[in-house]
């Protein structure tokens, strides 16, 4: 039977040392849809999204309780290879972070790390990824130029292409437009809407209008708790919880 849930979090608590960052989070991320996570700074939204591909493994003195399942498999089970999880669940960060290499190599690198050796296959994958990330037309004449010469928006789409090259199933975006101008932001948003045809997407954003524009479902986090989650049009027209209403209408503070 078709399971609409791609990622399932169950009773997730998370601590940085003694500091509890997430409190009993249970939520589903549906396959082929865009889930936005909104909330004020420090609400735990980035911490949560980073758990979904085990990025927080790299942070010392952290404790996780509860479970996160990717297609029914507990991603924190000892049998699971975190590198494989990060291939299946890619992440795009707030600040574009291309490698100081050529545009081509930025994408080829991940393929090589994942064991690809055939240059033709690698080249084909690089071109496909750049096309999917809506960057191909802008860079096809200069694949050997340094990625650092690209504009911020282009660098961010390159990072998306880098994720796509290794054939992920889920894309996580952590404030992907925070350092971009409105035009570049619009391009990334259009791209997210295009990518959701093939990928499951979760996006953390401070920009509520962005959540409204790109997401199908929205989750509101506050002080480490999931206050409310629902269809985006319901959250933005008729939220059930007073705290959600206060946050999205700017009455918080």
């Amino acid at each position, binding site marked *: 039977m078709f399971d609409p849930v791609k990622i399932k979090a169950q009773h997730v608590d998370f601590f940085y040392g003694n500091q509890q960052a997430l409190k009993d989070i249970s939520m589903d991320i549906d396959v082929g849809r865009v889930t936005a996570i909104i909330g004020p700074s420090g609400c735990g939204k980035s911490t949560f999204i980073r758990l979904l591909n085990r990025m927080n493994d790299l942070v010392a003195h952290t404790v996780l309780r509860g479970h996160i399942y990717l297609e029914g498999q507990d991603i924190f089970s000892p049998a699971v290879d975190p590198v494989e999880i990060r291939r299946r669940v890619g992440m795009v960060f707030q600040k574009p972070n291309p490698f100081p290499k050529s545009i081509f190599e930025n994408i080829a690198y991940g393929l090589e790390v994942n064991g690809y050796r055939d240059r033709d296959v690698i080249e084909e994958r690089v071109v496909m990824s750049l096309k999917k990330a809506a960057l191909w037309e802008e860079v096809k004449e200069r694949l050997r130029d340094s990625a650092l010469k690209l504009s911020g928006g282009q660098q961010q789409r390159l990072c998306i292409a880098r994720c796509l090259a290794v054939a992920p199933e889920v894309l996580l975006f952590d404030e992907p437009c925070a350092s971009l101008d409105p035009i570049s932001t619009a391009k990334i948003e259009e791209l997210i809407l295009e990518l959701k045809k093939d990928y499951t997407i979760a996006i953390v954003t401070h920009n*509520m*209008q962005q959540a*409204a524009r790109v997401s199908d479902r929205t989750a509101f986090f506050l002080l480490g708790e999931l206050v409310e989650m629902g269809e985006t049009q319901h959250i*933005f*027209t*008729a*939220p059930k919880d007073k705290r*959600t*209403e206060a946050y*999205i*209408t*700017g*009455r*918080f*503070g």
Partner: protein
Amino acid sequence: MERYFDEELGRLKDDMRHMGDLVAEAVYRSVEALKGQDKPMAKKVIDDDKSIDEAELAIDEECLDLLALRQPVAGDLRFISMAMKIATDLERMADLAVDIAQRVVELGDQPLVKPLVDIPRLTMLAQTMTREAIGSFIASDMDLATKVILMDNEADRLRDRIQKDLIEDYMLKDPATIRGAVPLLLVARHLERICDHATNIAEDTIYRVKAKVVKHHPEKLNNNNGNK
């Protein structure tokens, strides 16, 4: 936290209250003109409709500006989108007051076929419903909105009785009264339509406050009592 936006919403509320007052006043004066067969007063109601049309346009513009510039969501969005609908309802109510005034002009000096009893009652009701519907919206008062919606039954009942009296006691018995009775039938109908628009406004209030659609779903009204 106080927001500058709340001041802007406050101005919108003031403008809506002002437009509601103008409409209630137009309804009242149109029927006063009928009672006194006062053609100059009826013509004034017709002329003054322009200022109500302008009030509608001003509210629409204010709402569009707020939508574009503040990008409201949730309760704010429901408030502004309902305010636009309400401005339309109010404008139509004013047009119905104009219709009543036109009946007065048509009647001219010919004596009324009967003394007015239920029409002034229906007028009182229409005015009350208009003021309270707007008041309920501005104050987000669910109880008052529910009360307005329930008052509409009384409006229907009065309209039916006026119709029945005019048709059975006058028009059927003495066809010579038809020319004088038809305008009164129409006035009753105009007043009842005004009450319907007030009911729309009260239903919009319930949507604005509770995000619940009671329009065309009267059964949902019951769960709203007492909630604010």
